[in-house]
């Protein structure tokens, strides 16, 4: 189960990574498009304009995008980071700081300043306590240096890299760390350490390895259910998914329950009345239902009974899973319930319509088959009523094949069916989330979504295996003891 999960994510990662037009290209095209759309004045913000009128992304910008997407690492590290990784991303590169300028960066909830003067880089903790007073740093553009609100000015000594006027707790780190080595410095606000790492042309700040290891917060990756941040929505993917999962769950579970209940009832009835007009009529009906694609029906329902003025009868409420909050909150509890049901009827019909046929026929055939088994015949021969044989003996056995379809069907209702249907009825579910993520090329979000789908799918498979054992005690997953 877990290897499969890893496999799925790997395949997906490979697809998004190696198919041209991957994350970086996408963001770049997006930015170029935006820049092209924007007025001339705004263009300067995005990059330099060529003489041809197209916008080229300058290297610094490119680096920033890469860093934001986590693309500054090589493929293997990116892949591992996605699955399971400790330690935060390297936080800042000196490449992003121009000489004589400073940049404010946030790092583990605090802000740091990186200042570059000549060849040296200096790192400051933004806020610090001096004699119980807190000081804030700002960058004085004209003077070309950082200014503390407390002392008006900070002076540093590039040779020792230490002394700062007044505020002892400010730490200054020169960039002249040995190449490819680490320079540890006290991270003042909570005693952690920060690592400064210099490669040939860049200085990185990283959390020190020990702090990263001991600090549980810094373990991340999909396997810990710590999802990356969405590019477009500026929110943690986890939160986005949790919001949407509620709606998808509601849709999925209700259609699931409805399908199974109706199908078992119908299937059993059909088996009992095998060969009658009722049997044939319902067979045709379910088959027709199977033939009608859910999303095609959905479009038709919107046209026929939708909320717009062009529909024939207005029965289906406007988009969403509930009425808008200003209306919804005024409703009585009963009204709220009805409101929810009302919004779900049409989507659930479309989600379930094509799944009736298979399940009903399966139930029917399975019940019929069991009726002809010797134990059922024997029970009848002992004088038990047909009804009793059905309910007490046959039903349980004939449900076994139904459990097989459980996981696939459940996942299908979650995604395959509902993407189109969620889009048509504008329900903010998971399907729609992955669709918009794909349209907006939000790769972290897509990967997180994929992970959730796979996770749900595999969990369902496990549940169905457990379901087997409950329904049929004869099945054992341990090796045969003979």
């Amino acid at each position, binding site marked *: 189960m877990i*290897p499969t999960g890893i496999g799925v994510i790997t*395949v997906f990662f490979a*697809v998004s990574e190696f198919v041209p037009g991957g994350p970086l290209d996408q963001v770049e095209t997006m930015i170029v498009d935006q820049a092209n759309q924007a007025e001339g004045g705004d263009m300067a913000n995005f990059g330099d304009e060529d003489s041809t009128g197209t916008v080229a992304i300058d290297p610094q910008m490119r680096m920033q995008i890469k860093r934001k997407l986590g693309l500054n690492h090589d493929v293997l590290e990116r892949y591992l980071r996605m699955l399971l990784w400790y330690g935060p991303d390297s936080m800042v590169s000196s490449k992003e700081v121009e000489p004589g300028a400073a940049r404010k960066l946030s790092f583990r909830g605090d802000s740091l300043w990186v200042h570059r003067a000549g060849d040296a880089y200096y790192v400051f903790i933004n806020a610090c306590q001096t004699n119980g007073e807190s000081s804030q740093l700002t960058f004085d553009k004209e003077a070309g240096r950082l200014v503390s609100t407390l002392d008006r000015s900070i002076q540093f000594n590039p040779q020792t890299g230490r002394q700062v006027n007044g505020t002892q707790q400010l730490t200054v780190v020169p960039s002249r760390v040995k190449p490819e080595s680490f320079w540890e410095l006290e991270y003042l606000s909570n005693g952690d350490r920060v690592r400064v790492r210099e490669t040939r042309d860049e200085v990185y700040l990283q959390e020190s390895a020990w702090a990263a290891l001991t600090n549980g917060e810094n373990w991340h990756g999909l396997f810990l259910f710590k999802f990356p941040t969405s590019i477009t929505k500026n929110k943690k993917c986890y939160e986005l998914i949790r919001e949407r999962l509620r709606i998808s769950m509601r849709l999925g579970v209700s259609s699931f329950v409805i399908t199974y209940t109706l199908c078992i009832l119908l299937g059993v009835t059909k088996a009992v009345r095998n060969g009658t007009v009722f049997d044939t009529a319902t067979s045709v009906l379910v088959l*027709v239902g199977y033939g009608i694609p859910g999303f*095609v*029906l959905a*479009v038709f329902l919107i046209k026929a009974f939708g909320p717009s003025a*062009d529909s024939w009868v207005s029965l289906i409420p406007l988009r969403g899973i509930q009425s808008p909050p200003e209306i919804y909150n005024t409703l009585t509890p009963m009204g709220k319930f009805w409101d929810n049901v009302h919004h779900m009827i049409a989507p659930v019909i479309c989600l379930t319509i094509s799944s009736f046929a298979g399940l009903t026929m399966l139930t029917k*055939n399975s019940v019929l088959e069991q009726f002809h088994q010797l134990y059922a015949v024997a029970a009848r021969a002992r004088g038990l009523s047909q009804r009793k044989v059905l309910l007490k003996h046959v039903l349980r056995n004939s449900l076994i094949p139904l459990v097989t379809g459980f996981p696939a069907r459940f996942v299908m209702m979650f995604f*395959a069916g509902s993407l189109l249907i969620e889009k048509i009825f504008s329900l903010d579910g998971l399907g729609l989330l992955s669709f918009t993520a794909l349209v907006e090329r939000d790769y972290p979000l897509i990967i997180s979504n994929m992970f959730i789908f796979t996770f749900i799918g595999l969990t369902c498979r496990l549940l169905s295996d457990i379901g087997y054992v409950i329904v049929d005690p004869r099945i054992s997953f341990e090796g045969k003891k003979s």
Partner: protein
Amino acid sequence: MSLSPEFLDRVRKFKKNRRAYNSLRILTVLFLLTLPAELLFNNRPIVMRVDGQWFFPVFCDYTYKDLGGDDEIPVVSYKAEMFDDFIAGRKAEPVTALIFGDGSGRADGAKPESGVTTAVPRKFWALWPPIPHSYKSFYSSKQLERQRLASPFSREEGGVRLPGARVERHLLGTDSYGKDVLARLVYGFRLSLLFGLALAITSTVIGCVLGAIQGFFGGLVDLLGQRLTEIWGAIPRLLLLMILSDFLSRRGESTELGHLLMLFVIMNLTSWMGMAAHMRAQFLAARNLDYVKAAKSLGVSSVRVMFRHILPNSLTPIVTFLPFSISSSILALVGLDFLGFGIRYPAPSLGELLSQGQEHLDAWWIMVPTFLTLTSLMVLLTFVGDGVRNAFDPRYK
């Protein structure tokens, strides 16, 4: 490979199922009717005669020079002003010809002001298709305003009846690009069926080969194959298709047909799994049967055993799967088109029509016929599939 009497018996059983057999007949008739769609719905004459020479515009592209004119400009539309001018012997003004020569019809019958009537009209005779619109026939920008979302019945606009029924014979109205809905439906129906059929066949072949290899060799091959199939199958199909097709459309083929073929290839990647699972089961069971063992011990090669001995005995899942495979292929295509990740626009597609129907709810003439076409196509396929399954699968009685 001769068909076994058992197989023929099952075919007979299928024919006895009236519902399924009639559905198959209806589908075949519809398919055969739409197959020559170019001859029925086209803005080009099937045959025409200009100055004593025969031309076949449906099958060949001509330039005006081919037709006896002076310009090396291809004839895009035979319903355009430019072509009318050419026939009448007028010389159209070059600039307007270039702008509106893209297929502009002269609906109002007015002579272009710039036309110089000097030359002699050419002798012209043409055999037109019954509906003079193809799925991509388009209009001049002037006419387009009126053609957009034209309902099939109201040819009036502001109380004025619009002239020029020659261009406007839209039996089911037009879509928002001014294209004939009926023509797009017919072409789309044909394309869907052809696509579905082709995809079903290729994915069956792929599934058979992969399933056969897994089932026949068993052991490690089987285990590995199973795991890989599981992984590949766990990825939601539509999402994967969307990603691949998106990648395709941003750098892929430029021609309509090339794009369609690429789409076909990527859809093949995801559609073979059901078939493979069934074939695997068949082969796993068959490889221990006596006739296979006998063949093996006689030194028959594995490939030969697989495809000459076992495969003919494992036809049941192939035949039972085919109709459902066709319908799911068609549905996948329609779904992709509906989301805008499928065939490129001018190509006729039912999914694209459906999404137009959803966008323009007032234009019922798009929505309702498309809905009916799609559902009846699917329901007919389902009936056929059900009949086939009843006849072929011994488990269904």
